[in-house]
Each structure stands twice: as C-alpha cells, then as structure tokens.
C-alpha cells in the first residue's frame, strides 16, 4: 500500500508580531500572535526546497523519481517551478516534475496524485513539496492572518511510515478567496457568507462523508490536521463534526505561523506526525473550492524517521522582525531609495542553463588525483593541476565553518550589511557565500554554518537562485 515514507517542513526564521502590524496602521483589528515571514530572499520555491531537504534527510535524493511542487504563489505565471526545486534538491535528471498551482488544495491535490502514481506503479517515489507566501493587502486582516511556510512528504510503497487508508473528495465552486492573474493580494467575500455557506458547510460534510466511506467515526481519529483559516472557525466546525477539538484537532499554527494556504494542511500533518505513534489514525483535510479528506494509519515505520526539523524545531527557532516597515520592504510593497551601486548585470540565460548542475544543486567536483573537493567544477585541479579527472561531489550536507567574514555596508542589499563569509568544508573545499538569517554581532571565525537555497536576484523577470550560508538553524 502506498503511503508516506518521510516528512519535512520549513518555517522561515523571521516572525512579525501582529500587534506591530496593528500599531503600524493604528488598526482596530484585535488579532494576537505572530506570523512567519519569508526573508527578502525566500519564496515558495526556496521554502519548498528547504522542506524537501528536511524530508530527504538520510535519504538518497536519487531514489526520487517524481517531484510535485504545490503552491498558489509560484514566482512564475509561466515556467515550471518544480524543475527549479528538483534541480536544487539534486534529483536525477530523469525525475518527472510537475507543478500543482492556483488552488488552496494544491498541496493535498499533489498528495493524492502522488499516492495514485505510486499505487498505479507509474512512479516509485514521489516527493511532494509545497511552499507558500501569500499576501493579504496592507492594513487588512489577511495581512495579519497569512503566514509563510512549507512542507514536504515522500510518498512510496517502501519504507512506509504512514499508510494511506483512503481519501474522500468533493468540489464546490465557490468564490470565498481568489486572486486573479492581475492581483497581488488575495481578494475575498464578506466573512459571514464565507463562513456559513462555505467552510462550516463544506468541511463538516466532507469529513463526515470521508469517515463514513471507511466505516469510521470521529472518535476513531487520533489527530485531525484540518485546514483552517483561523482557529475559531475550526472550533465551530469541530462541534458540528462530533470531534473533541481540544484533544483531536491539530493546532492550525495560527498564533505562531499564520495561514500558509495550500501548505497549511501538509504542515499540520507533519506536526501531527511528529507526535504520532504506530496505530494512530490521522486525518488530513485540504480546503478550497471543495475538500480533500485523507485518512491515514501510522505504522511502526514512524520510529525510523528521525532528525527532522519539521514543525516543532522550526517553530522554536525564530527571530522577530524589528518593525513592520522591514516587512514592507522585504515584500517590495513600497518603492524605496535604491542603493548607490550599479544595477546588477543582465542575467544570461545560456549561462544559467550551462550552470544548471552546479548552480542549482551546489554540486561541485572532487579531484580523483588528489581528492580535493572544489566548487564550482573545474577543468584543472586547483591543488594538483590534474586535468579533467574529477567526480561529482555534493556539498549541501557537509559540515562547514567560517574561515573569515566581513559585514559590508557598500554592497547593495535589502537588508544591510551584506555579510560575506569564506566557508571551509570539513571534508575539504571552500566556497565564498553571503550569509543570511544571522545577527552580525554573533558571527565569529570558526563558527559552524550550513547552506540554504535562496533567491539571489530578480532581474528582467528572471528569478535567479543560488546558495547562501546561515548559522546552524536548529
């Protein structure tokens, strides 16, 4: 039976306090808590990569033969995002890549499609990676309630930790939230209609139908990860469904992360898997123009999934954004004074294509004559000058330390100073990176760092990605 063989998640380091938003606008909205905010160099792609890397901890990326990227906030309207995610994760070039886009059910849709592909035998190992960075209009309640995050699930028939018992699906054409191809911010209909005619009608009905389909009662479910735009709505729906919300509902991350759209049900599922024991029955529900209801059964295999940062560790590791304006700047919501530096160079598409193997994946080479790892790939060894005698070498999970660094106020940056660090890898090799998610005062020579896939430029409509280093996150 197909099921989930591994899981991972990502929550950006930075959090914005909702009272700070309220104060910035002198607003009446009494929304407490904080929201997770992607840094200026993060988007749905980079966060999906981070969640994917978490999910593939201890797993050979070459085993993956299909990558489903799910999001309503792909950086491209036209151009696949999954191929970028697959490249960054170092997946085999024969991996089939697919985008699930536009729908708030993109994440759960992709999970169903992954289970179907594995069940049907057309794929053996599908990585579902879902990242989301939706924006509500400034000074609105969606700006407060939306958050950024990502989740990833590995679906296969082997090493199954969570069996997919089955699922129930229903659609309901319904304009509760929408964003046209011309909109930056999510639009929505008035709250009472959205609640009464939408969520409170569709979700309980679909959950009931799903349980009935598998001859189960609400009491049989150990934990239900149900998409919820806010916890109050989930509580109201819980009463209708016959669940004990306190005991059985997975926290919808509202106070800590915010509504992460299509990634939310998968992030909640990951959170419930972190506490799951063999024999538990789990439910995962995606919502948006209908409902996807999954019933899952946890097996002994769950014990083998270790060292994931998942939801818990990412939640604990955080840094508050100093003020609302910083958020406005990171999201490009206001035109600001450009730095007094030349604009970046035109990005050459042939060069991006040529660099694909090393530029996206951080795969370098190791000299077969002297054994020295090198990045980017060379034709002549930097140590022994042997020619064309290299093997591929993956730097992404190698231990690394800062040899030296500086904090540069001249370099153009949305978040100065630009920290530059010469990073030495324990098993050999050096790469010079920009460092982010760091407090300049805490950066020291000899400090351990890790690499993180980030957006380095946006120019002439091209989102350009590469790697940076960060302190060990958690």
């Amino acid at each position, binding site marked *: 039976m197909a099921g989930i063989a591994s899981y991972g998640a990502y929550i950006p380091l930075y959090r914005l306090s909702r009272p700070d938003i309220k104060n910035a606008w002198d607003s009446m909205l009494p929304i407490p808590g904080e929201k997770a905010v992607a840094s200026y160099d993060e988007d749905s792609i980079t966060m999906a990569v981070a969640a994917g890397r978490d999910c593939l901890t201890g797993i050979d990326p070459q085993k993956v033969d299909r990558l489903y990227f799910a999001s309503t906030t792909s950086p491209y309207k036209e151009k696949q995002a999954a191929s970028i995610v697959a490249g960054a994760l170092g997946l085999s070039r024969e991996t089939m890549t697919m985008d699930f886009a536009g729908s708030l059910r993109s994440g759960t849709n992709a999970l169903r499609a992954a289970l179907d592909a594995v069940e049907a035998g057309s794929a053996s190992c599908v990585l579902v990676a879902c990242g989301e960075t939706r924006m509500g209009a400034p000074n609105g309640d969606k700006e407060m309630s939306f958050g950024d995050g990502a989740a990833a699930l590995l679906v296969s028939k082997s090493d199954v930790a969570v069996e997919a018992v089955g699922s129930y699906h229903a659609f309901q054409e319904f304009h509760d939230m929408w964003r046209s191809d011309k909109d930056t911010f999510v639009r929505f209909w008035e709250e009472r209609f959205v609640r009464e005619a939408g969520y409170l009608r569709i979700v309980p009905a679909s959950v009931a139908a799903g349980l009935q389909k598998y001859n189960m009662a609400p009491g049989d479910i150990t934990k239900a990860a149900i998409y919820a735009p806010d916890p109050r709505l989930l509580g109201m729906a819980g009463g209708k469904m016959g669940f004990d919300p306190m005991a059985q509902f997975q926290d919808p991350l509202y106070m800590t992360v915010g509504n992460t759209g299509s990634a939310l049900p998968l992030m909640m599922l990951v959170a419930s898997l972190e506490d799951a024991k063999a024999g538990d029955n789990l439910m995962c529900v995606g919502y948006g123009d209908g409902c996807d209801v999954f019933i899952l059964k946890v097996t002994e295999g769950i014990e083998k999934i270790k060292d994931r940062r998942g939801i818990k560790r990412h939640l604990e590791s955080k840094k508050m954004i100093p003020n609302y304006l910083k958020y406005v700047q990171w999201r490009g919501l206001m035109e600001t004074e450009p730095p007094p530096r030349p604009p970046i160079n035109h990005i050459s598409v042939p060069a991006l294509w040529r660099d694909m193997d090393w530029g996206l994946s951080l795969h370098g080479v190791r000299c077969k004559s002297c054994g020295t790892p090198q990045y980017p790939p060379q034709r002549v060894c930097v140590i022994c000058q042997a020619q064309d005698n290299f093997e591929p070498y993956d730097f992404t999970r190698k231990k690394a330390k800062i040899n030296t660094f*500086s904090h540069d106020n*001249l370099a153009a940056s949305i978040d100065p100073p630009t920290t530059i660090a010469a990073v030495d890898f324990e098993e050999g090799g050096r790469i010079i990176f920009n460092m982010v998610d760091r407090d300049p005062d805490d950066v020291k*020579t000899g400090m351990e760092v890790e690499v993180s896939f980030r957006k380095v430029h946006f120019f002439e409509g091209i989102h350009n990605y590469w790697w940076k280093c960060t302190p060990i996150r958690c």
Partner: protein
Amino acid sequence: MGSVKGIRDKVAIIGMGCTKFGERWDASKNDLIFEATKEAVEDAKIEPKDIEAAWGGTWVSGFDGRCLADPLKLQYIPVTRVENACASGSDAFRNACYAVAAGAYDICLAVGFEKLKDSGYSGLPDQQSLPSNRYPDRTAPGMFALMATTYFSVYGLSPEEGKRMIGTVSVKSHHNGTLNPKAHLRREVTIEQVMNAPIVAWPLGLFDCCGVSDGAAAAIVVPADRAKEFRPDPVYVKALQISVCPSEGELRADYDFTQVRATVEAGKAAYTEAGITKPREEISMAELHDCFSITEAVTCEDLEFSPRGKVKADIESGFFNLDGGLPVQPDGGLKSFGHPIGASGLRMLYEVYLQCQGRAAERQIKNPKLGLTHNLGGIPVSNTVSVLIIGL
C-alpha cells in the same frame, strides 16, 4: 614562478607626467590622458611625434589602441590597450619597457588612466559577476575586510588593537598626502577619527579605504644607453614582475587571508631581477597598493619589509613614515590619491621617479637609490600583482 632573466638596467625613464587626482568633474578621460602625456613629453624634452609606440593601461575607461591614439592624435604608430586589473598601468609600462629592451623601438610611451567619477555610483563598478549572476554579492572593501578579520584573529589582536594598527597606516598616508599638491585628499586625520569612522565593511572603516577618483599618469622610456642624450638624471628600470594567482583562495581552504601569495612571488622575482637580497635595507622607498589599510600592512610582510606577523611593530615605530627607515607611500598612496584603477601604477612610478631625481619637494627623502611599486589587482582570493623596481 618561473626563472627570472629580466631586463635590469636596459631601459631608462626620461620623462613622466601625472595629473592632479580627484573628482575631476572638469576633465574627460581624454583630457586626463592629454594632461599626463603632455607633462611627460615636456619633461623628456621630446616632441609627441618622436614617440614610436605606445601602451595604454585602463580597466574600464577605454578599449583598444584608439584609447591613446585618439586623444593624443598619435600618427599611425602601434598602440595597444593593456588591461590587468589594478596592475593595468604598471603592465602598460612593462610592455613599453620590453619593447625598448627588445630593440624594437627607442622611444615608447606608457599611459595609465581611469575615469571613475562619471558613473554616479559608490565604490567601483562590478566587473566580477558571472554571466549567470550565481555569485555572492561582494565588493572590494567586503573582500579585503576578510583579510583584516583573519589577520586580527590569527595574530591575537583584539578588534581595537587591530583597528589601531591599520588605522596608524592611514594616519601616516593622510599626512604624506597633505604634502602633495596632486593628491585627491589633503588633510591630516587622527587615529581617533580613523578608528571611530563609520564602518564600510567590518572591520574596515571609512578611513581604512582609499577613495574613488579620476586620474592619469604617463612615462617615456628609452634604451638605457641613450638615456643621457635626453636628460642628465634618468631613472633606470631594475625589475618588472607580474604574478597572477589562479583564483586559488576562492576554492582552497588552506588559503588563510593573512597574505597574498602573488605579492610574495612577484616580490621574490623582482628582488632576483634587481639583485636585491635584503629588501628591508636596500629599498629606499615603496609605493604599495594600499586600496585598504590592511592591504598595505599585509603587503609589507609579503615583500619582506617586516617579518611575517610583525608588521605592527614597524607601523607603530614609524618605520614606514616619511622620516623612517623605509618610507611607504611618500606621495600619500591610494589613501590620498584615490584609486583610478589604470592610473595608479604609473602614479606610483611618478613618485619614485621624482624622489630619485630629488624633485619631491616637501616629501623628499634622503638619498633614495631604489624605489618599489606594487599593485594588487582583484581581491585577496584571486588577484594579479605587479612589483616594479626603478632607481639610480
């Protein structure tokens, strides 16, 4: 570094010129080239038509031989543009000297120039990015700051001690610049000002960085055996060396940022070519590539002026001051002149030339015999270095 044969004492400088450096809003690059060359030609007491071949050194302010032929209206002679980062001017000079030493020509011109202040941006233009732009954002101060961070850490200097050491370098150079009418910045600074200045790239503050300016400098070279036909006090070429790093520091974890191997290699080769065995004693003065104060400090060790790790004592004792044992940047250095990339190498030679002829006015040092110039193009991990020695 390969074997060194060299051309010691085969070529002499008979004329030099140098513009006022600075924010030359008034002057185009062609004006700068013309000004510097006019002074050099007059100094050599030749006519422009006597020039048989020319080399123009620039980083980003011109292309091909027309960069000199056009402003100077050189008449159908061979002209070549030379680009070798911050060593462009020095390399143009080297090419002119080699042509003379080879016997191909008798009177050659080398001009270094750069017009940076037309861009409107801070710092230097970014010439380093890969076409895919998959590259860390980095600037010259950011990359040289890496040297300061490591130098302090390797030699156990607190940030305060380290900043005081490199700050003293800047105080000295600013002082020398006050004595030079051609310098861009001509004012004294105190160590407190230097240490408390705004940070450009930690740990480098504003006064640890050279400025961005416009300028040009030129030299006329002839065979040594003909030099006295032109003037009684020619200055002879002793060594012309270049060493280029294969960008090792970018990839090799054993590069530790406390030295620049290309400087060490070019220095050794230049000493061999010039027959120098004790540089600290034999060299009368040096114009080093002080793009940043830390660069000057490290270069003093790389060129064996100070023992490895011990430059602090020499900086603090005033050994490199104008009245010290080995004056460094007697003209004020990049610190006071700013760094119009292609011009700096020939600007340095101009000071050594004047000093050797006793024409350095208030800056004149006693009995100079040999002067060294050094350019470090690029960044600590990847660079092209020139070391030139001229003298009597």
